[in-house]
């Protein structure tokens, strides 16, 4: 579904992503794990067009994304829930969700909204509330719900567990699994490597901008190198 080949991304003179290649197949949860600053978010931003690779190619369903304007990527079926949630704080919950369906055919918006409300009943209860007043967990749900409003084929999640209490983290990961089971392909970036690898079909380990290891979720969970570096021994 998504194929990233040899991308290189620079922030000024800093070489943030070095020759990164990976694949996401239909129906998988694929995770990119790595320490803070390893380049995980940069990779996602490059896929969604916010940043640009100087080399290589990114194809999504056999269409090249590298030279496509960022706002034209969402309609292709690829949604990106950014790090730190980035919800529109001053808008209501429902307005945020409407923005998520900005490129969706108007006749389908009501149906998508109903689906999101079904998955996140909390959002329905609070639909008229200003998004900035939601709790952290609710904001994460809103960010994910907003990403789902375009009914994407591939959902990219950047650190969905960041700053959440353990019980909420469990909940978020359960939802990610459910989404996969309902046919949405997931590319998940996480610092919480253990949780991510447990639900992932496959994973890649990023270190200072390079992919150093890859394998199935179980393989990586049991790999001594991953255990030592990311799972606390």
């Amino acid at each position: 579904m998504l194929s990233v080949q040899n991308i290189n991304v620079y922030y000024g003179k800093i070489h943030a992503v070095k020759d990164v290649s990976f694949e996401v197949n239909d129906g998988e949860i694929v995770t990119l794990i790595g320490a803070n600053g390893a380049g995980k978010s940069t990779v996602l931003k490059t896929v969604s067009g916010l940043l640009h690779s100087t080399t290589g190619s990114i194809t999504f369903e056999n269409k090249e994304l590298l030279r496509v304007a960022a706002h034209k990527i969402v309609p292709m079926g690829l949604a990106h829930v950014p790090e730190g949630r980035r919800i529109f704080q001053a808008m209501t919950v429902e307005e945020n969700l409407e923005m998520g369906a900005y490129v969706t055919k108007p006749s389908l918006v009501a149906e998508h909204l109903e689906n999101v409300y079904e998955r996140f009943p909390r959002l329905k209860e609070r639909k008229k509330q200003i998004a900035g007043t939601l709790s952290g967990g609710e904001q994460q749900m809103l960010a994910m719900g907003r990403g789902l409003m375009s009914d994407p084929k591939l959902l990219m999640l950047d650190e969905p567990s960041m700053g959440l209490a353990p019980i909420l983290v469990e909940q978020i990961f359960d939802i990610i699994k459910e989404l996969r089971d309902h046919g949405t392909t997931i590319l998940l970036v996480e610092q919480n490597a253990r949780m991510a690898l447990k639900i992932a079909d496959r994973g890649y380990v990023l270190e200072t901008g390079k992919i150093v290891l890859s394998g199935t979720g179980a393989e990586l969970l049991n790999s001594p190198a991953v255990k030592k570096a990311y799972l606390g021994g």
Partner: protein
Amino acid sequence: MSFLSHLINGISLGSIYAIIALGYTMVYGIAKMLNFAHGDVIMVGAYVCFFALNAFGLPPVVSILLAMLVCTVLGIIIERLAYKPLRAAPSLAVLITAIGVSYFLQNGALILWSASPKVFPTIFEGTIRLFDGQLTIGLTTLITIAACIVIMVGLTLFTGKTKMGKAMRACSEDKDAAILMGINVNRTISVTFAIGSGLAAIAGVLLCSAYPLLQPTTGSMPGIKAFTAAVFGGIGSIPGAFLGGILLGIIEIFAKAYISTELSDAIVFLVLILVLLIKPAGLLGKKTVVKV
């Protein structure tokens, strides 16, 4: 009775400032830049209306619509040519460019239409007398206030209810997140400039109907005062621009009537400085923490 008359005149002048300030504040909200050429777009709008009325003998409504059309296109062109290439540039570069565009428009007007002032024709003739003729209100005054209210309500509905309006709010809050929704940020910025410049044309016609001397510098002082009004009310806030504009107009007229005509502008700015000392974000502005 003279107090009431001054108050109405103040609200009317304030309405003009408010319409101009709306253009400043919307562009600031979305493009995070101060478009100092905005005042000069007002002047261009007034000239277009003037020539449409005087040289071509078009009816007033058509002339005003023509002025709006020209200014809307002008706004979009200015944004494309002068500001869009600087989207990633430091804000100081954009500010200096805006000042450059302002002088460009003023000098362009000087070449095209000469420095000699033109007398703007009366579009809205008539007065209304109240309280046995003790209070006279010009029709221009009333139309100015009504226009401002209609524009304010229209913009509130536009940003609150329409898809484009909501996209504008999304862009003004977080551009990257808006892009991730599939919103075309460049187009949204163009639309904002178009609306602001169209409003500037209306402000130009109203301004010259109230103060009928039209010359290439006509827009600069009202432009600066409207910018002040936008800051006064809280830059980036639409209700703030409205409130700031109205208050500034009232303060200016009262200062002229009761204190000193010569000092009225100084008094206006003194009030602004005092307000900003107490409320640095303006009356309705949000406190924003800028991350460095």
